[in-house]
């Protein structure tokens, strides 16, 4: 999403952003394909309980310091709207 700001960013900031993302994935050892597979399975589990748009589920791996966390986000429908 910071692609649209890229024009204004220094190459130093671009490098930093890219490294944060790459290292987060490296540290967990999850290749892109596995991550997508996990995303689909998580989306399937959520949809068992709540009606959701499974394509809107996003998984992100983020690293801060040496701790890495997995973030799953999914828009949930308001009760009765689904």
């Amino acid at each position, binding site marked *: 999403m910071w692609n649209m700001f890229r024009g204004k960013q*220094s*190459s*130093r*900031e671009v*490098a*930093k952003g*890219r*490294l*944060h993302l*790459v*290292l987060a994935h*490296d*540290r967990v050892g999850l290749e892109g394909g596995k991550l997508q597979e996990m995303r689909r399975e998580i989306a399937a589990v959520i949809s068992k309980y709540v009606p959701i748009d499974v394509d809107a589920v996003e998984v992100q791996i983020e690293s801060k*310091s*040496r701790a890495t966390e997995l973030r799953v986000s999914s828009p949930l429908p308001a009760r009765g709207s689904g």
Partner: protein
Amino acid sequence: MGRAIVITSGKGGVGKTTTTCNLGAAIAQLGMSVVLIDADIGLRNLDVVMGLENRIVYHVVDVVQGKCTAQKALIKDRRLENLWLLPASQTDDKDAVTPDDMRKLIAELKASYDYVLIDCPAGIEQGFKNAIAGADEAVVVATPEVSSIRDADRVVGLLAAKDIPTRLIVNRISAHLVKKGDMLSQSDVIEILALELLGAVPLDEHVVASTNKGMPAVLEGKSAAAREFARIGKRLVGLDVEAVHETGGGFFARIGRALGFSSANAA
């Protein structure tokens, strides 16, 4: 009892060998005894960077195979009272040495010398495993580039898994490029790798000339890189030296900040 420190990086060409050579010379200048081990079996280089390539008789593989004692294989650096080199072999396979061999050899050297610095080969395979086997601590060398930092991070993870305490040297940093916004600063690298910084060595043409001559830069005088290597040597042996300054924040920049002029590129 001495202390063994492995100098490693993951990526090749970031200055491991130059760093090993200069830290060894810097610590020897402080009056402590130092053995440098070239752990890059089959691709030896520390000898030629040190300028000791013409004096090799035995090497590390001869020692682990019992063809000679460690003492006999050590080459004494004539420029410094307390510095020795144990060269790698140039012909053997890297499997000629095992982690156990290295542990035994380093334990033996630590009994007689204050510091054993191990110059690790690039990569994370057998040569790396050998090089870190006997180390009490590690120094990771990284240049402020995405490829170097990515590989350094892999190595940091592997060292952590072996419970080897690890500190960082940022090598070949250019204050000019950092200020322009075209190079990661030392604090960027520290933030990304989450390691304690030992020092940041500036990009310095004197190092190229020193290496050409086979002379450790720290023995040649007062170039910026030589001064930083000397300072890192002091920190490595536990001497209390001044904290590292941020590159790019020179005297005038600091005055400017004190007067309230802020630079858009300030670190």
